[in-house]
């Protein structure tokens, strides 16, 4: 049954992803992406990685997507009568051609690579393993991977500072109007 669920979810994820890039309204894009993330999270669960699934929902769907939504709302990009709505969605001309070509090439390359490799079968007992994956994860994270962990925290700090600098309002006569 889990297998069947997997296939359903994957179809869902793919459709949602398509929805991301195919929506005119940015808000719709955000919501589609959210849906895709949910599907992926359940797939993680099925695979036996509960903590990751939780993180996916909490951080990815819950923080990052919310941030996206926040910015979209802030800049009022979702307004169907606004300026943003009237812009063409896709690039035109040579760029589009090249882009599609690249994408197709990537897909084909990936498929070829995957189909040419033989993978041994998965032991069903893997997914049922329940002996404290979170605890083991914690031991690994703060033990073996403590350096990347600390580096990640430094990265977050640097980003925070950077964002504050980037998004700071310029107090010069050039600033046009004020937005909340």
């Amino acid at each position, binding site marked *: 049954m889990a297998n069947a669920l997997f296939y359903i979810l994957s179809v869902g994820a*793919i459709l949602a992803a398509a929805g991301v*890039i195919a929506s005119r309204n940015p808000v719709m894009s955000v919501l589609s992406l959210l849906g895709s993330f949910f599907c*992926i999270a359940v797939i993680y669960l099925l695979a036996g990685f509960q903590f*990751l699934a939780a993180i996916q929902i909490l951080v990815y769907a819950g923080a990052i997507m919310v941030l*996206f939504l926040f910015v979209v709302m802030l800049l009022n990009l979702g307004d169907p009568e606004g300026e943003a709505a009237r812009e063409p969605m896709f690039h035109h001309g040579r760029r589009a051609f090249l882009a599609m070509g690249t994408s197709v090439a990537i897909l084909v390359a990936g498929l070829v690579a995957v189909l040419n490799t033989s*993978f041994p079968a*998965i032991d069903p007992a893997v997914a049922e393993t329940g002996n404290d994956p979170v605890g083991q994860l914690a031991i690994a994270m703060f033990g073996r991977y403590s350096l990347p962990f600390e580096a990640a925290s430094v990265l977050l700090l640097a980003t925070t500072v950077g964002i504050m600098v980037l998004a700071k309002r310029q107090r010069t006569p050039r600033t046009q109007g004020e937005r909340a």
Partner: protein
Amino acid sequence: MTVPTEHLLILAGILFTIGVAGFFLRRNLIVVLMSIELMLNAANVTFIAGSRQHSTAGDLNLDGPIFAIFVIAVAAVEAAVGLALVIALFRRRQLVMLDQVNELSG
């Protein structure tokens, strides 16, 4: 779940390709950023597939999820910075269409 690893990887590939297509084709900067998130997600799925492949009955391989967690952290960071740029850009030009942002030319 005993889905063969190939299928997981195919899923990741399709998601990635969709992300690439969106990255190259869409003109709206926000959507481009979201495509990037999609690509990163696809990478995460790949990691999971690999980790699942290398696990045995008694010992769950945790390299995959850990890497995926870091990827999520980096994705968050990158999204935040990107959005900060969008906001800064919007303040200047009122619009966030990608091909109109061309002041970095030489």
